């Protein structure tokens, strides 16, 4: 018994050590291996599954066509997933395993800012490009990393689209009241508006922070009401957006635009407020209604259809799915442009990438984040979501100005 146990121990240790033996050198096989640790169990299961759906949609499509074309040769693609149990430390170990053991040519991002931040450091240290779609915190991109690229618009862009849209409307709104939850993401969104609105000659008449998760925001709305702003902005979450909209109705705060960063895009918002949800705007990474002219891959309509065929019964793809597919597309086009599977060359091709797909424009700034794709603005019109800005991708006109509460 003792001998056997100790032998097992010894064998385990030796196997770990010997397993480290890795063949070095170029992957000459015809299959391109992409690696992605995802939280397939644990607290991030829902979003991670959506991410995986987005990756798989592209994998199916590219392999049906024979693979990624590099110098006239078609390379099939395998995406290797590991479950990081929604744990960022585990994600980093698995990322290293994908690189060392599975010889992943390139990496796709995990879900969430924390795991993305940890994995970005691994990608950087191994000099393997990672294209990520689910970490919007700008801090990740302010580290001088050269191998991490994010296809989504950073947090500071979330409500800038609303200001851009407002600047095109008549009569042009001129005053903004900004309310914000005090968590980091919300503050990043709100602070950006504080800087951005004046550049469109709009004045911030109120900038008020409240406790993240607050359910009673009467005092904040009252402070806004006293200043009678043209635009009421909120940077927060679903519950706070609902609370603010209710308080605005009670106190008859009649702004021309009500726009909330997160919340209105979910069905729960309309369910909770029914008719009062109408006219409310929000910023979104992507909507199934946008109209971009894709240079390759599917059109938006075909994408939505492909999603519904592969994953029937769960409705339209949400933006998590779309941005994850977009990450694959950025990588594919970069490999094609580089005409090589060399990680450094593909990195350079990613840095130089400029292409429009169903998700929007894919182009990275010096830090590696996509500041070129605008956030789209959605408006709830007669109980349904419509994309209203930018006008070239919109499926409806903004209903402006929002009528006063007693005239609805």
């Amino acid at each position, binding site marked *: 018994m*003792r001998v056997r146990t100790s032998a097992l121990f010894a064998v385990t*240790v030796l196997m*770990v050590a010997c397993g480290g033996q*890795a063949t070095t050198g170029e992957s000459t096989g015809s299959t391109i291996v992409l690696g992605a640790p995802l939280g397939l169990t644990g607290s991030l299961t829902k979003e991670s599954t959506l991410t995986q759906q987005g990756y798989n949609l592209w994998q199916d499509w590219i392999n049906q066509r024979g693979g990624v074309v590099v110098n006239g040769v078609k390379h099939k693609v395998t995406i290797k997933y590991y479950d990081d149990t929604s744990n960022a430390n585990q994600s980093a170990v698995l990322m290293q395993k994908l690189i060392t*053991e599975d010889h992943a040519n390139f990496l796709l991002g995990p879900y969430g800012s924390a795991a993305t931040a*940890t994995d970005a*450091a691994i990608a950087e240290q191994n000099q393997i490009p990672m294209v990520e779609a689910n970490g919007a915190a700008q801090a990740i991109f302010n580290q001088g990393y050269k191998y991490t690229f994010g296809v989504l618009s950073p947090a500071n862009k979330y409500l800038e689209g609303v200001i851009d849209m407002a600047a095109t409307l008549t009569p042009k709104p001129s005053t903004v009241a900004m309310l914000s939850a005090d968590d*980091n993401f919300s503050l990043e969104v709100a602070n950006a508006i504080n800087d951005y609105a004046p550049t469109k000659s709009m004045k911030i008449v109120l900038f008020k922070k409240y406790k993240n998760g607050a359910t009673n925001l009467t005092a904040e709305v009252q402070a806004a009401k006293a200043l009678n702003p043209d635009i009421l902005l909120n940077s927060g979450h679903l519950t706070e957006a609902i609370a603010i909209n209710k308080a605005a109705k009670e106190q008859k705060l009649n702004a021309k635009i009500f726009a909330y960063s997160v919340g209105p895009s979910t069905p729960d918002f309309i369910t909770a407020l029914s008719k009062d949800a109408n006219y409310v705007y929000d910023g979104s990474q992507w909507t199934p209604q946008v109209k971009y002219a894709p240079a390759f891959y599917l059109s938006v309509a075909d994408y939505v259809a492909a999603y519904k065929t592969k994953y029937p019964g769960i409705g339209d793809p949400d933006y998590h799915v779309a941005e994850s597919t977009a990450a694959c597309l950025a990588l594919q086009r970069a490999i094609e442009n580089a005409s090589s599977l060399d990680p450094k060359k593909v990195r350079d091709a990613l840095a130089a990438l400029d292409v429009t797909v169903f998700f929007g424009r894919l182009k990275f700034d010096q830090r590696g984040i996509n500041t070129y794709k605008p956030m789209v603005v959605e408006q709830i019109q007669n109980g349904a979501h419509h994309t209203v800005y930018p006008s070239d991708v919109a499926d409806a006109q903004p209903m402006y100005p929002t009528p006063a509460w007693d005239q609805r």
Partner: protein
Amino acid sequence: MIATPDANARWRRMFLILGGILVAYALLAPLTSLEAAQSANVPLLADRLWFRIATYIAMFIVLASAWNIIGGIAGYAAFGNVAFFGIGAYTTGMLIAKAKWPFLAALPLAPVVAAAFAAVVGLPLLRLRGHYFAVASLGVGVAVGELVQNIDYAGQPVFGGATGLFLPIYSIENRGLFFFYLMVLAAALAVAVTWLVLRSRFGYGLIAIRENEEAAAVIGVNTTAYKVAAFTLAAALTGLTGGIFSQWNVFINQDNTFPIEYNVQMILMALLGGTGTVFGPAAGAVLLQLLIQFLGGTLPISFEIPFVSENARPIVAQVILGVLLVVVVLFVPRGVIEFFGGRARFSLAYLRRSLRETSL
């Protein structure tokens, strides 16, 4: 299971030789990844994945050994030691990221700050006993993590808040190797400190406290000072690894520097290996961390659990881990070191004697 003294001695020798070979291998194999070794056509015995896992193992050797000082030797079941890990990580992290200190200058402050914190909270906390102390220390562990994430000054998070803290990647040749050996040094330090404690008047005092605190006080042990000193020493070692971790991992936040599961794991490791011993917690750390990594699917050896789909594996792995630990606690209550090593405690004198016997 009854073995003759002779068989016992033979077994101990085998165990020592095997252990020595494994340790030597673990320490030397990474060197084969150096460019000089590669250009001399030395076969690659360890790669970056190996370093990462081995560094975690070394890290847990420190955590478990440090816990052993307060939990095993002094008998105070501290459930909040992860607070010291986090404090160490954030001390080094803040100095590097915000104050732009070089890593090697910032690292020594990690154990200092963690120890200072332990001394301050230890004074009131160590007046509690048994369950009360365990729960209170757990509370401290959780509270510190929450504080670090939520302290604001002038509207800005002081410690990086929910976003976390980014450190510049430490620019050094063979970074993976560097952190591996740094962590191994910390592990060696932790084991050496345990050895010193067990051989000192201080250690005997702690054991006296563990066995009977009133009696210890009666025979002249300054129990408060001894307990706080043990707690502080554990905190310093734990904080040191936290400091190394912050620069190694580059990114720190509440989740990765104050993980509640580390509290549990470090205690289980000490139990598994043998509390109150010198090498027990280290052996437990190696075994349990290997098992965790194995079940988590990070080791190069893969396995299939019958009737379990690939997706359910991590959950089943957790269950297996839990069952295994129950079995260990039931059947190997005094730890694997005791189990393998016979009745004698694993002492250096014993090590020396064995080495003399085995070497020609």
